[in-house]
């Protein structure tokens, strides 16, 4: 008689914003559906990788009301990426001082061993840890000891591993596990000694290994073909596609251009810094697209990538750019202007491609 049908949607309130989500959704996913400031940051969770999350603790939230049936608050802060929503749950993220304090602590912990070599690191400008440090961290650290250091390591011909910068989010191992046929790298040792490595530096050479670079939230895994070539904010991202022979590759990528030169090819990222999905399939790209197709003629360019205007990458001033028309010729009756100095003749950096 009193058979209760399972509810089709759960009502959850995050920072006083109520939303209906499907049962089984995590708090983080529900917050992402609302979007904006109420979304907790995530360093290890990656919605496209199964089993990721629960490691970095940056997405901690306070649950002030467990559910409609059991309104007691949860005793401790919970990791929102691994906690499912309940009907009538009330979650506090940025409205809770406890969360802000805990997150600042987590950032401090993440930065304990992370070298502050952003001026050197290729990830600077699109680094999630950098953003996290700015938005949630404190200015100083209380750590007084030497940071752990590792030797640089080449994983395969295209990827370089800077273990010193790694925050052990495990995303790259999930990529290796779920995208590529044979996993040849993983985590060695435990605790403070834990490190990502290939077993006796065995080369990684499968077709989708380059996606490790995209999922890495910090500069631990970097593209060797782009290493120290340029800074991300000097390159201009454009969306492009090509017909890739590899059936698993989506062929849609972001090219990072400077002038007509393709400096780097990455998968397209969504607003959470994750690889974009097409037809609910994540748009991973293959190594051929990523590392070998470094000419604009290889690609069909769709247009500039939308970049958040608060990002340093938008310093490139490429969006809505209007090229001024040349008036000198018009004024001088069709004559070419006599250039007193053409910078391309003098500069060793700004070389003209004629």
């Amino acid at each position, binding site marked *: 008689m009193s058979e209760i049908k399972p509810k089709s949607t759960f009502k959850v309130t995050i920072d006083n914003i109520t939303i209906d989500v499907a049962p089984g959704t995590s708090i983080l996913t529900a917050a992402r559906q609302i979007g904006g400031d109420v979304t907790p940051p995530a360093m290890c969770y990656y919605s496209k990788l199964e089993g990721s999350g629960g490691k970095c603790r940056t997405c901690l939230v306070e649950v002030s009301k467990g559910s409609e049936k059991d309104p007691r608050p949860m005793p401790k802060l919970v990791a929102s990426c691994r906690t499912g929503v309940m009907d009538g749950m009330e979650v506090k993220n940025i409205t809770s001082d406890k969360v802000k304090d805990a997150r600042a602590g987590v950032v401090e912990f993440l930065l304990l061993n992370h070298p502050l070599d*952003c001026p050197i690191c290729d990830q600077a400008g699109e680094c999630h840890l950098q953003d996290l440090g700015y938005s949630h961290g404190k200015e100083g650290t209380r750590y007084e000891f030497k940071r752990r250091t590792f030797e640089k390591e080449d994983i395969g011909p295209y990827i370089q591993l800077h273990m010193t910068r790694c925050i052990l989010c495990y995303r790259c191992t999930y990529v290796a596990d779920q995208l590529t046929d044979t996993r040849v790298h993983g985590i060695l040792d435990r605790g403070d000694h834990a490190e990502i490595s290939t077993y006796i530096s065995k080369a990684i050479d499968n077709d989708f290994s380059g996606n490790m670079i995209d999922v890495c939230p910090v500069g631990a895994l970097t593209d060797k073909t782009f290493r*120290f070539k*340029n*800074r991300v904010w000097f390159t201009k991202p454009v969306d492009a596609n090509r017909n890739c022979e590899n059936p698993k590759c989506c062929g849609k990528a972001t090219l990072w251009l400077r002038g007509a030169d393709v400096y780097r090819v990455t998968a397209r990222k969504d607003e959470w810094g994750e690889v974009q999905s097409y037809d609910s399939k994540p748009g991973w790209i293959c190594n051929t697209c990523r590392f070998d197709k470094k000419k604009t003629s290889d690609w069909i360019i769709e247009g500039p990538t939308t970049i958040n205007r608060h990002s340093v990458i938008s310093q490139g001033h490429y969006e809505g750019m209007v090229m001024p028309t040349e008036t000198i010729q018009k004024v001088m009756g069709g004559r070419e202007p006599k250039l007193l100095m053409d910078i391309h003749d003098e500069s060793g950096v700004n070389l003209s491609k004629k």
Partner: protein
Amino acid sequence: MQALTNKAQQVDRRPMNLLERMYLPTIIKGMAITFSHIFKKKPTINYPEKTRPFSPVFRGLHILNRDEEGRENCTACGLCAVACPAEAITMEAAERKDGEENLYKEEKYAAKYEINMLRCIFCGLCEEACPKDAIYLSETFAPADYQRKQFIYKKEEMLIPHPINEPEAYAKARGNKVVTSQ
């Protein structure tokens, strides 16, 4: 119309009187001012022979700094170039090889570094943006030149002399500028 400030003065458009029409008193007054300047202290100096003391916050020609061991501080992070409102700075980075540790401080260094002094407005934002204490504005001017192309300053022209090999030139280039070490 109501004046915004009480400093505005109405222009006097009355016709000139006899004394003003003669012009002579005003001319004499002007001559007296000119003559009195002969006995005053000269505000100018004989420039190349004598120089004025610079203010400690003077912003002149750029210098690329070295550390105490003579290694280049610049790591080609590009923050100066992105901070530059005149877009005068360009650079190209390279990776430090083994055995070059005595030349470059960090594992990445600026292989090429250029400042277009014709574009530079000497605002000092590059100095402020630099995380490595690598660039600062010295107490010298960019010297005049006959050709515009000479104003693209390369790394060799801006690099400070080696502090161990040429300590005097280093001290001179460094000047009296107080550089807070990090």
